């Protein structure tokens, strides 16, 4: 496709962007495109035909039925829509094909700009073992443990003695807690190893076990990075320790527990890893922080925009999605690390169509009435409207409410005020959960860890 006839805009060679997503992130990308004067094409499933992003895009193309694998996950249909409608670039949002290296590669082959890092970088970082290796190469701390499976309990004992108890035995083939054992002292190891191997064999047909340092009372801290390939910037951290079953519920920046020295080391590690792998676009390095020891370990890298990116935007003033588009258009970053200032505190609450009183059961249905909160320091990213029918096929995120304050106290007070004003009628949402959370002493004191919600806030019923 020739772009010779098209005027060059502020985003370099981009003129028309296809949005390959739905819901609030599709709206987020459309807004960024509008502000950059880029034309928009959105692809959607039949179930999203009446959605707000479809109505706000310049063009909308139905690519398939409700089921994702026949629409949002079908790379060929999306690339085809981009070609037919002469889109220069595809923004994948988060989820769906956003971290799919094959999709990025298909875009590259078809000479459509994929708004994200190169396919080979996605591929490397998507392989957990390879990513851990790359982190180690870049000098980024990884959780102490065996690099692969262990021969037997004796080898496990040797390693455990080295990294220190408690340790975690894990099924190499598994996940989801099956074959997992916490070993608190050397005497327990042989017995636990045998149990874990037996359970692993039963669950996954493979008794291979590896060992890792067991960390409790940990926090989930991630560093936002932004790179044009030459300049690699960090935009500080986000504390995402408020989770339920590894699903983030509330994120904030700065972290209430990170001291300046540890923050500097984490940001430095994130930048080093990006440089090491030649990362471009916006990305996030997720770390485990052990606040008691002030130590952190590389967990994984998300090679896309994150749900919680707005908190970083609120304190830095940098529009991450516009930056992604500008980088994708070949425009070098106009800012240096020293230009980035962090002001105040920002918190995001994810408002889901879920009933927190019934195990966070999803509640699709029709939003009979929606009224967004407003006023000072409040940002709302939502694809809801009065009359919107939530399709039962996709995730339950309805809105992200973000509150900014000069300090954490002001941000919390604003969030509380805003959630009290917000009205969503017709479906049950997680607003009551957030109102409880925002008043909880441990949260107010910043003394939470990744199992706080399940163990303390929701208690035994979680």
């Amino acid at each position, binding site marked *: 496709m020739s772009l010779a006839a098209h005027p060059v805009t502020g985003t370099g060679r981009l003129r028309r962007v296809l949005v390959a997503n739905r819901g609030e992130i599709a709206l987020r990308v459309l807004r960024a495109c509008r502000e950059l004067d880029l034309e928009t094409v959105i*692809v959607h499933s039949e179930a999203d035909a*009446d959605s707000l992003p479809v109505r706000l895009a310049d063009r909308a193309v139905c690519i398939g039925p409700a089921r994702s694998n026949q629409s949002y996950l079908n790379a060929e*249909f999306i690339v085809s829509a981009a070609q037919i409608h002469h889109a220069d670039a595809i923004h994948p949002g988060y989820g769906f094909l956003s971290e799919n290296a094959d999709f990025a590669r298909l875009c590259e082959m078809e000479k459509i700009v994929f708004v994200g890092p190169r396919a080979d970088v996605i591929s490397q970082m998507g392989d957990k073992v390879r990513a851990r290796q790359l982190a180690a190469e870049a000098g980024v701390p990884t959780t102490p443990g065996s690099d692969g499976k262990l021969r037997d309990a004796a080898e496990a004992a040797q390693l455990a003695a080295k990294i220190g108890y408690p340790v975690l035995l894990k099924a190499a083939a598994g996940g989801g807690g099956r074959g997992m054992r916490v070993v608190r002292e050397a005497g327990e190891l042989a017995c636990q190893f045998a149990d874990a191997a037996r359970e692993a064999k039963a669950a996954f047909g493979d008794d291979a076990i590896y060992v890792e340092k067991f960390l409790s009372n940990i926090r989930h801290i991630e560093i936002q990075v932004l790179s044009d390939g030459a300049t690699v910037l960090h935009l500080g951290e986000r504390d995402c320790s408020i989770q339920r079953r590894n699903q983030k519920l509330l994120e904030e920046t700065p972290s209430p527990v990170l001291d300046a020295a540890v923050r500097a080391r984490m940001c430095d590690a994130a930048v080093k890893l990006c440089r090491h792998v030649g990362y471009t676009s916006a990305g996030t390095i997720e770390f485990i922080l052990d606040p008691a020891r002030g130590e952190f370990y590389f967990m994984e890298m998300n090679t896309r925009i994150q749900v919680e990116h707005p908190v970083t935007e609120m304190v830095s003033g940098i529009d991450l999605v516009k930056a992604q588009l500008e980088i994708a258009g070949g425009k070098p970053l106009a800012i240096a690390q020293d230009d980035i200032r962090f002001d105040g505190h920002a918190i995001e609450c994810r408002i889901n169509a879920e009933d927190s009183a019934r195990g966070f059961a999803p509640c699709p249905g029709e939003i009979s009435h929606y009224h967004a909160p407003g006023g000072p320091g409040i940002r709302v990213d939502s694809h809801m409207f009065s009359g919107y029918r939530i399709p039962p096929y996709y995730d339950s995120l309805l809105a992200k409410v973000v509150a900014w304050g000069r300090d954490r106290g002001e941000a919390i007070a604003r969030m509380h005020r805003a959630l009290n004003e917000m009205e969503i009628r017709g479906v049950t949402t997680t607003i009551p959960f957030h109102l409880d959370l925002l008043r909880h002493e441990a949260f107010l004191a910043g003394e939470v860890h990744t199992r706080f919600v399940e163990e303390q806030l929701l208690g035994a019923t979680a």
Partner: protein
Amino acid sequence: MSNTAFSYQDLLQIVDLIKTSTQFNEFHLKVGDIELDIRRGEPAARPAPAVAAPDATAPTPATPVAVSPPAAIAEPHRSVPLAYPAGSVLVKSPMVGSFYRAPEPGAHPFVEVGARVTAQSIVGIVEVMKLMNSIPAGQAGVVTHLLVEDGEPVQYGQVLVVIEAENA
């Protein structure tokens, strides 16, 4: 809370029921918070939610608009409602792509308005990523409408051809 008694599946069943019946022209159902209005003949536009931007809602030249005939009430596209006579069968695109009316550039079109087709007759091709997908009529009858120009983009579910079914 409100709609535990009424699922998406129930809705589909009701729509199917109405579709296969000729007795009802209007249907109003209220179950708790859910209100369902089905009307035959002129599908009511969904209450447009939230767009003040004239450039966002105005149809752009290259955007295909799907036609929603009476028999396809649940058609979820931005609709320009068109009514076809009873007995009309709609041949829809099974995928997003470019529509071609002829097997190759310069060749005669597969069908023209007035052409008699069998269920196996090819009425056009939808190209996706250089893959050519032949579109069969699926129903014997006479072609009454050709709705997409040669080479135009089509979206999933878009009506390509209308056929007046035989024995209908």
